[in-house]
Every structure is written in structure tokens, then in C-alpha cells.
């Protein structure tokens, strides 16, 4: 028990810390940060641990959001059940698509995902318009059940719920990183062919990693669906596909807290910028170029490596003095 607390305690502390920030910051901002950081974790998991870059992440998030939305709009009123439906839809979709896409080489993978996202948007906006009601979207905010202890329409209740979900996901990811599967993922990223020679089925490892990453995206999608109480095709707009790439890279890919830090910085900046400037593409685009030119390591890895760097420098100074 103590060992587990020692391993995962930091995660609980970090997310409790985000909750404490509620004293100073608006709830809507923190909720957005929490959900978006989960979404970014999905991207970061794919790129950092499997070396797969997806330009179509909104598709996987959107499918789950629509799963939840359709259930709550047409069938039930229980938001938790709605979330389950959304996640199952997201996982099943990722399982099928993953089976096809994971075989592709990296350039094809990225582009195929981009295409998938564009098609998903189109399907929900126009092809299934009689079910999804197109751009109007599905509304069910008033239909969702409320419980005394969990009222999704109360921002503080929702923030607490989202933080617990996020902490759970971070614990799972950290657990995976420490497992044989995590090592296998990294090995695929480093040298897939070598792993094949050693007799591993890299296809299955990649497929499993892909499904896991997109299950995380699905969780983010269902959280958005129950938070807003409505879902529209905008959630899987291709225009928004680069956002998660920017945030992921900003925070540093593959690091545990990178997605959270990147999201925090990005959304804070976006809120500040859009308050004074309507052309957000100019800002996001410039940031993307600057982040890429500065290097792939992002803010979080700088923060993580700074103490180590200082220690190394101190040791170096000592040894050269002595």
C-alpha cells in the first residue's frame, strides 16, 4: 500500500493541486484544462510511446462524444451510463480502425488519420443529418439526471469528477509505462524491425497501444459531451486537429506531466489572446513553428531536466575545482 502511494502519490497531489487552484481561477477554465489535458495525453501516448503521430485525433474524441450524445438525446437520462456508451463506442471504433491503420508506415498513418477526421466530420454533419441534426447538434443538458453528490451542472461537482477521472488515467498511464507492455511500446518506437527479429508481434503491440491511446481520447470526448450537455460536429473539425499536436509538443511528448502543463499554458494563452485578438490561427500557427524550431522537447522536459542539469553542472564545477 505504501509502495503504491509512493509511486502514484505525486499524481494524486498534482491533480489535487489543480483542484485547489479553483480558489483563484474560474471553474470553466480548470475544467477545460482538465479535459483537454486528458485528450492531449492520448496524443502524447501515441507519439511519445509508439512513435505514431496522428493528425486525426478529433475523430476518436468525436465518436465517443457522439456515442454519449446520441444515448442521452434519444435513449436514457443517466450521464454515467451515457459516458459508458460513449467510451465503448470510442474503443470499438479505435479497435476496428486501428487494425487497418497500424500497419501503415508513419507518413501514411498520419495522413490517413487526417482523412479519417475530415470524413468523420462530414458523416456527422451531413451524411447522418436526420439523426445528428447537423450543425444544430444534439441537446440534452436538461435531460441528464442529477444526484445530490454528483450534479454535472454544478461546475465544482464536475471539476471534482473530471479531476478524479484524470488522476485515474494518469495512474493507468504511469502503470503502463512501468510495465512490460510500456517497455515493448518504447522498443517498437526505437526499432520495430529489431523487435520483430526477436519474435515479438509488433503489429499487436501497436494495435493495443493505439486502442489504449484512443480510449483515453474517448474519455475526453465523453467528458466534453456531458459537460456541455450538447454535441455538434465542431468537436471533430479538421481545423482543430493541429491544436492537440501544438499542445502536446508544447508540453513535451512522452513525459507524464507534459500534457497537463502544455494544456495549462496553451489554454491560458488562448483565453488571453482571443480576448484581444480574433485571428487565433496567426497565434497558434506561429507558436507551432516556433515550438518546432526550438526543438521537440517542450516545456515540461525543460522543467524536468532543469534540476538534473543543475546538479550535473554543480558536480562538474566541483570536479574541475578539485
Amino acid at each position: 500500500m505504501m509502495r503504491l502511494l509512493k509511486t502514484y502519490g505525486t499524481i494524486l497531489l498534482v491533480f489535487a493541486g489543480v483542484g485547489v487552484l479553483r480558489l483563484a481561477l474560474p471553474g470553466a477554465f480548470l475544467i477545460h484544462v482538465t479535459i483537454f489535458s486528458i485528450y492531449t495525453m492520448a496524443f502524447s501516448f501515441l507519439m511519445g510511446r509508439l512513435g505514431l503521430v496522428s493528425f486525426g485525433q478529433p475523430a476518436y474524441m468525436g465518436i465517443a462524444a457522439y456515442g454519449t450524445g446520441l444515448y442521452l438525446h434519444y435513449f436514457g437520462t443517466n450521464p454515467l451510463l451515457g459516458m459508458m456508451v460513449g467510451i465503448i463506442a470510442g474503443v470499438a471504433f479505435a479497435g476496428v480502425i486501428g487494425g487497418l491503420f497500424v500497419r501503415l508506415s508513419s507518413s501514411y498513418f498520419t495522413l490517413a488519420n487526417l482523412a479519417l477526421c475530415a470524413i468523420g466530420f462530414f458523416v456527422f454533419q451531413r451524411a447522418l443529418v436526420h439523426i445528428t441534426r447537423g450543425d444544430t447538434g444534439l441537446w440534452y443538458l436538461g435531460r441528464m439526471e442529477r444526484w445530490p453528490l454528483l450534479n454535472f451542472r454544478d461546475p465544482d461537482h464536475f471539476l471534482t469528477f473530471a479531476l478524479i477521472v484524470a488522476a485515474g488515467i494518469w495512474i493507468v498511464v504511469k502503470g503502463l509505462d512501468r510495465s512490460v507492455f510500456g517497455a515493448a511500446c518504447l522498443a517498437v518506437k526505437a526499432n520495430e524491425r529489431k523487435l520483430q527479429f526477436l519474435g515479438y508481434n509488433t503489429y499487436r503491440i501497436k494495435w493495443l497501444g493505439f486502442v489504449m491511446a484512443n480510449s483515453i481520447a474517448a474519455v475526453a470526448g465523453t467528458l466534453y459531451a456531458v459537460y456541455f450537455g450538447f454535441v455538434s460536429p465542431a468537436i471533430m473539425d479538421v481545423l482543430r486537429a493541429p491544436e492537440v499536436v501544438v499542445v502536446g509538443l508544447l508540453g513535451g511528448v512522452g513525459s507524464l506531466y507534459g500534457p497537463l502543463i502544455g494544456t495549462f499554458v496553451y489554454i491560458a494563452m488562448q483565453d488571453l489572446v482571443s480576448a484581444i485578438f480574433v485571428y487565433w490561427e496567426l497565434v497558434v500557427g506561429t507558436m507551432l513553428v516556433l515550438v518546432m524550431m526550438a526543438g521537440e522537447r517542450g516545456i515540461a522536459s525543460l522543467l524536468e531536466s532543469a534540476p538534473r542539469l543543475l546538479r550535473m553542472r554543480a558536480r562538474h564545477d566541483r570536479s574541475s575545482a578539485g
Partner: protein
Amino acid sequence: MSVPELAGTVVIGLAMSAIFFMLSVGLSLSYGLMRIVSLDQFLYYSVGAYMTYVVTSQAGNFWLGLLTGVIASCTLALTVEKSLYRRIYEKGVMFSMITSYGVLLVGIGAIKYIWGLVPRPVMTPIVGHVSLLGTTLPVYRFVVIGLAVVLYIGLRLFLERTIVGKAIRAGIEDVDKTEGLGIDVYRIFTLVFLLTAGLSALAGGIHAPLIMVDPHMGLKIIATAFMIVIIGGLGSIKGTVVSSLLIGQVMAFGFTIWAPAAEMAPFVIMLLVFLIRPTGLYGSQYLRR
């Protein structure tokens, strides 16, 4: 479907194929040679269209507009290539993809800033119609098709007959070995990049009278353009031609049968191709990287 309808649909499809070809052949070529995925090409496509719009509405000459668009886009592309791509070529494909998406977004922001969000119409330069198999079709569509054919033949001759074209083919097989002969490959990279940007701008300008010019036009066509490149196989010109023709027809027939199918169909075809050949129809065996 009657014969006139059929003929009309085929011609519309061919005109679409023509524009798709102009837009995707450069993407395929620059992936083959430089191993980059240059999403900023869709900015040059938009710039080509907007310059055509500006010159056509101000000076009243479409063809001058087209030329202005190509020159403006190539100038922009040269700046981007020299300042950004020079640092990207040695890194992975992802690097170019993400950075160029940044460039594309900046460009879209700039276009919104300059021209606003409202879509703008561009006058068709040739208003005549011809009768064919019992239906009347605008001459402009035939001009578009003809232009694409000329460009294709020109490109083939350039690659097969000129020494620079041979160097490009050699580079597609192996960049290091090409440089090992004493060829400054970066100069050839710049050339192919500019060629691609010029073709993208041309596609944008030619496409403008058929659609409306709007800030998101580049993003709207990304998915289709890349599906064409992927279906044909990255790096293969022949593949790009075949898949442009295929997708053009599929989309044209889709629109006449059931509109939503038109935009779905290319994706279904892409999935089918992936099932059979993960590297596209003509994906080159030389592209091992």
C-alpha cells in the same frame, strides 16, 4: 442515367481530376525527393486563388491573375523554404508536417485578416459552352482538362529528358548517392519545392471560378488531396494520375447519385487500397525510409 447526363458527369469528373492532379502531383514528388509532407502547399493554393480573385476583379484579366498568383506563391514558398525547410530536411517527416501546418495556419490567419471571412466569387474567364453528346458543357472545363494534360506531358518530359529531371529521379531513389556524385541536392530540393508551390497556386487559381474563394479553401481540400496522394502511393507520379482520375470520376458520379456519397467514396477507396497494398497503388519500392 441517360447518355447526355453520363457525358456531363464524366467531363465534370475529368475537370475535378485535373485540379486534383495539379495539387497532388507536387506533394507526391516532394515527398519522394525530400521526404517532407508539405501542408503549406494548401496555403499556396489559397494564395493562388486569392491573387486570381484580386486581379480578375481589379484588372479584369483572369489569366494575368493566374500568373500573379503563381509568382506570389513561389516568392512566398521560396521564403518559407529558405528560412524553415532548410532546417527540416534532415529531420523526420513528422517535423515537416507539423511545422508546415503551422505555416498554413499563419497564412489562413493572414488571409482572414486581409480579405475577411466572406467567400468571394471569381468570374469564369471563358463563358462559352459546347454541345457534346446531347448536353451543353462550359468550355472552361475543357480548358482545365487540357491544361492538366499539357502539364502532365511537360512534367514527364522534364523528368525524363532534362539533366535536372534525371537528378530528381535519382534523388527520389537515393538522395545520399545523388549528392555523392557531386550534385548540390539542396538546390534541387528548392527547385522541386518551387515547382510544387507553382502547381498548387495554379490549381488554386484554376479552381477559383468553379468554387468560391474563401479562407478555409485550403483546409477543405487537404483531405481529398492527401487521399489521392496516398491511394496513388507517395512519390509516384503515375499513381497520382491514376488516383486523380479515379477520385474525380467517383466524386462526380457520387454527386449525381447521392451527394453525401461523393465525399465518403474517396475514403472508402483509400481503406480498400490499404487492405490490399499499405503503400498505395504505385507506392515505390525504393521509398524505404
